């Protein structure tokens, strides 16, 4: 090794503490979880077999996927509208819009979940208002079901959908939109043929982000689902904390990790992830 090579190798010692911290507190526990999933209650792939044999396991996975897909779709739809409005707003208005998008992020997820419960429960604001207005005679089942979970999750996810989409919309050269109109496109055609396709990388980025985030959601589904609709994270908690079935719980946790790794891998084949997450030019 040359002197210069030795000198540069020396610098690597400086990141050793960070590396050890990551191994001890992050990688080791994950490896342990993986290990438990193939050793408890007995060594082998018995836990993973349950993916194909157990109706309960399959139901939890399907429920989670369904809620995540619906949440992602709704968050993207709402987020797109908000990001579009922000892009078109004046610079001063943009500041206020972005503040309005970010403020909910600073409020505890627990507080927001309980706030939705008070709004959506049988004697909540929404049902009371509708009943007093005479629109319904019986309270609607708005919470402690999938509907409630989706409402709470969409509310949480919209800012995460807005920010990547806003970033990609701001990159669009406004002259392109003027050019499209000058070439004979109506406002609708300009949006459909120029703005929408150019903002698509941001939409996909936001979609991946929101979907992955939704997969492991715990508090919001636990509170707004009322224990009746189980998503994966709550189910894992239930297996490990209440039923002491470590093998089954860690198997599902492993599947969650795999899903989180696989989703971006799939999308990276469709679009350039580096462009989406902003590294590189």
């Amino acid at each position, binding site marked *: 090794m040359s002197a210069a090579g030795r000198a540069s190798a020396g610098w690597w010692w400086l990141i050793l503490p960070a590396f050890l911290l990551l191994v001890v507190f992050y990688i080791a526990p994950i490896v342990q979880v993986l290990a438990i999933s193939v050793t408890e209650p007995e060594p082998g792939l018995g836990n993973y077999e349950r993916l194909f044999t157990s109706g309960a396991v399959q139901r939890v996975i399907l429920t989670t996927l369904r809620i995540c897909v619906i949440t992602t779709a709704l968050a993207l739809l709402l987020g797109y509208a908000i990001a579009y409005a922000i892009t078109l707003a004046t610079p001063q208005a943009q500041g206020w819009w972005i503040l309005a998008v970010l403020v909910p992020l600073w409020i505890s997820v627990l507080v927001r979940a309980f706030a939705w419960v008070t709004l959506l429960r049988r004697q909540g604001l929404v049902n009371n208002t509708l009943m007093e207005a005479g629109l319904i005679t019986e309270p609607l089942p708005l919470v402690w079901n999938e509907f409630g979970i989706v409402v709470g999750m969409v509310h949480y996810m919209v800012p995460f959908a807005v920010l990547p989409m806003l970033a990609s919309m701001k990159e669009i050269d406004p*002259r392109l939109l*003027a*050019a499209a*109109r*000058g*070439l*004979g*496109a109506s406002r609708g055609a300009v949006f459909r*043929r120029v703005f929408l396709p*150019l903002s698509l990388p941001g939409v996909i980025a936001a979609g991946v982000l929101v979907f992955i985030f939704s997969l492991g959601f715990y508090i919001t589904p636990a509170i707004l689902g009322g224990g009746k609709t189980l998503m994966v994270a709550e189910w894992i908690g239930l297996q490990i904390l209440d039923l002491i079935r470590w093998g089954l719980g860690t198997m599902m946790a492993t599947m969650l990790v795999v899903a989180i790794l696989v989703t971006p891998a799939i999308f990276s084949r469709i679009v350039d992830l580096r462009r989406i997450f902003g590294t590189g030019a």
Partner: protein
Amino acid sequence: MSDLGGHALALSGLTKRYGDFTAVDRVSLDVARGEFLTLLGPSGSGKTTILMAVAGFVAPSEGAILLDGRDITPLPPERRDFGMVFQGYALFPHMTVAENVAFPLRVRGLSRADRDAKVRAALDLVQLGFFADRLPKQLSGGQQQRVALARALVFEPNLLLLDEPLSALDKKLRAELQEELKALHRRVGRTFINVTHDQEEALSLSDRIAILNHGKLVQAGAPTDLYERPRTRFVADFLGKSNFLEGTVRAVVAGGFGLEAGGTQIVVALPPGIDAPSVGARSVVSLRPEKVALLLDGDVADNTVEGRIAGFAYLGAGFALRVDVPGLGEVRATLPAWKAPIAPAEGLTVRLGWAAEAAVPVEEDGR
């Protein structure tokens, strides 16, 4: 591309105000069918605002825009059927060259077969047929510029608007594309309106130039008219280079007058159609540097002055001299280098001369 002839455009008292600022001030201008008109002016002269108003992106505060006599002022841009080449081209980055060119046809609802034929014809017109399936970012600046031209012409627009179409290119390529643009104009026979701050581009491309300053139309006319007979000092200064000689009118005769400037008597011939100034009045004349000759012993000219060379620059094709003339100040002269009668040197005393027809009286620009 079939030649349907151009359309005529007229601006009538066009005015655009932004708060207290008047960007365009009562501009009236006629653009004839098939004409190549250039709006020329420094930045902030209102030329781009006028183009944007013609395109429909800027609503005028006052005045009207007429296409073949029909008022189109309230029409939105997509209803005007004007082709436009934007500054920086504004090609759609997510579409191939062919898709870019097909865009105006697609939004007009043409069938695929019609579209393909017209796109091919337009790309052939700008010699880019081979590049149909490339993305804009894979093309050079000059090629992108030609795609923008093809896209603006493919739907046979009423008018082609060009916003500084060549400003992003380097000098050599710019000269090349100037010629192409001129040839293209001749081939398609449509009305072109070009905006630029580059006076050489304006002179070489245009049938007619409209010179703007501070939002006002200063002078419009054929390039030679504007260059040879600038109406105001601004026009003479902006279009090419000029010496300005200021003095008092001492004598007026048929077809000319005598000017006393800094103790020097200068004879000025009046071009036809320009009124002679009255005796005793102040007058400014513009004198192009290339019309000033360096005189050797025995050479004669209508006007001669003597001075010392204060500085000179060798430009390859010629020498640019700055000569200090007592009383007159600095007089600039350009000489063709290959037949310069002397080797210029600083401090050298030289005799300069020019014909009576070389100098043109100009008005001072009012603000």
